[in-house]
């Protein structure tokens, strides 16, 4: 329409342009400056140390206090540090075993709590969730005391040297899997289970073809959480680790005691990257869109 551009029959009618700024709606938090400021400050507090850590892992300075130029040198150094790599391999081995066992245990607990009614169920549920709320330091001390008391054998061949750490990790991480899977079960339409049996399926077939596929996103998310928890756990591991079973976080801690070289930053950065990837994957599997896609019906 060009009528309004001045060529209109009304002749020379000036167009009044109203461009008033719209008022801020009650829920438009992103348009309030103090809200933006708070959010910005929060993110800064949260991430500035981590960003600095990553940036300084590329710092070409042994004392690592002022920036002296970019280098990959310390990644290389970390890679050639045998005891660091050994700790890293230990950490991975523990995390993998922990993930497998904790996931199975967590799924079983979640299903048991959802599926069955039994005496003392509420108490059982409470005790299952206890490791989530117990201070880690207490858990660590308890684990140490426990293994010392029962006389857990030392000096076993390699993967078995890690067995007590694995047990400790499984004990504190499987409740997280259980909680995650339980959360997904809440949305499960129990008529699906009835329908499966009605169509001739046994309990086991119903579990295998209906319940587990429905739970899959929750199980994967839980497994990734267990993996992350185990990989970066320090406190509990510190109390249960022996001289021959050092994990990456424990190793980093002992390195820091001498000096904070960029090598430490490099090792930490690797740990951060693995953890972030696992967490992002876990969140994606738990995302609402996946949930909706999984249970619409």
């Amino acid at each position, binding site marked *: 329409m060009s009528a309004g551009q001045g060529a209109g029959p009304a002749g020379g009618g000036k167009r009044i342009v109203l461009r008033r700024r719209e008022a801020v709606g009650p829920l438009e938090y992103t348009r309030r400056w103090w809200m933006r400021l708070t959010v910005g400050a929060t993110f800064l507090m949260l991430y500035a140390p981590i960003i600095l850590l990553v940036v300084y892992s590329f710092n070409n300075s042994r004392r690592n206090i002022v920036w002296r130029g970019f280098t990959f040198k310390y990644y290389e150094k970390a890679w050639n540090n045998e005891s660091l790599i050994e700790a890293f391999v230990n950490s991975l081995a523990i995390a993998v075993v922990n993930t497998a066992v904790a996931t199975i245990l967590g799924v079983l607990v979640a299903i048991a709590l959802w599926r069955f009614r039994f005496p003392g169920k509420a108490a059982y549920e409470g005790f299952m969730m206890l490791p989530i709320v117990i201070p880690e330091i207490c858990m660590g001390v308890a684990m140490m005391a426990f293994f010392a008391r029962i006389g857990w054998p030392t000096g076993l061949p390699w993967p078995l040297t890690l067995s007590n750490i694995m047990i400790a990790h499984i004990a504190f991480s499987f409740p997280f899997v259980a909680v995650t899977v339980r959360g997904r079960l809440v949305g499960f339409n129990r008529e699906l289970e009835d329908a499966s049996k009605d*169509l001739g399926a046994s309990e086991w077939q119903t579990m295998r073809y209906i319940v587990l596929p429905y739970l899959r996103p929750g199980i994967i998310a839980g497994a990734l959480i267990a993996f992350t928890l185990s990989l970066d756990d320090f406190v509990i591991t510190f109390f249960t680790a022996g001289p021959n079973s050092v994990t990456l976080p424990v190793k980093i801690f002992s390195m820091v005691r001498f000096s904070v070289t960029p090598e430490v930053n490099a090792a930490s950065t690797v740990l951060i990257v693995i953890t972030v990837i696992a967490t992002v994957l876990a969140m994606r599997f738990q995302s609402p869109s996946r949930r909706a896609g999984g249970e619409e019906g």
Partner: protein
Amino acid sequence: MAEGQPIIRIREVTKRFGQTVTAVDDVSLDIHEGEFFALLGPSGCGKTTLLRMIAGFETPSEGQILIDGQDMSKVAPNRRPINMVFQSYAVFPHMTVADNVGYGLKVTNVPKAEIRERAEEALELVKLGGLGGRKPDQLSGGQRQRVALARALVKRPKVLLLDEPLSALDAKLREAMQLELVRLQHAVGITFVIVTHDQNEALSMANRIAVMEHGKVRQLAPPSELYEFPNCRFVADFIGKMNLFEGRVAGISGEEVLVEVKGLGRFSLPGEGEASGEVGIAVRPEKVRLRREKPDEDMVAVRGKVSEVAYYGGSSFVYVTDDTGRTISVNLQNEARTAEPGVTIGDELWCAWKPRDSLLLST
């Protein structure tokens, strides 16, 4: 229809939940082969519980259920020769339509080729041919329900149980689906047992209807009998619209009972009653006529004022309030394009009906 042994026999079945809730209370009924049977009643009367006991998801607290002559008390749901369409449809969300329909065959080790063939056949039957590759979230509510139907029918059960199958559909689709279900039942020749709280649904589809209240079956009869001869106030009121008057037996002569109702006078009608006992007199709105002049002596009549007129397209309901404050509803068919002497609010009219069109209810 009642030849041979019933396909489902429910014998004195009671179901209690805990100490206080009696969901189903001493129900006995037989369902015969090929019937389209409806369990009808208000929400919470125990219909679903009864259906779930037939399917095997609940165990009766007392009594016995026989399917095809066999006692079902020790038979698990997955071993019963019946299938169910659930209220939520319970279509498996992670499987395609074809996998959903084939599921019941897969878990009972039917060969793959046969599964594919029978699943396709079942989808054709419910008019979903060609949609086998879709996921349930790509279907409409009505289509999902058809998947649930196909999935049950593919098992070739002796009885198909349907729990409120139409309640989630919109009015238009619901009507179409009523006809569709009847067509389907004729096509497959399977006994259908349907649960509904909608009397229109039950009346239009079923051969026989069991009306339930508080876990008990109040009346079991074909639709027309239920409508014309309800046996108690509850059924009379629940099925269709009904004008109910409280009266008294004034005398009994043979098959006829003389009743007296305040404002209506005395008249006799067929039925049973105790001398000078309280009775209910019921008359359907469409049996009542409106008159400008006082009707003949042989009609039951009451004078009142039109208090409301509700127009429904095909028919209208006229509500007439008499001196005592009772409101009588009258159903008028809108037969002509322009109703000549239109009834308007405030008109003084006579409501009249033949004594034989009213019904005596003693309970």
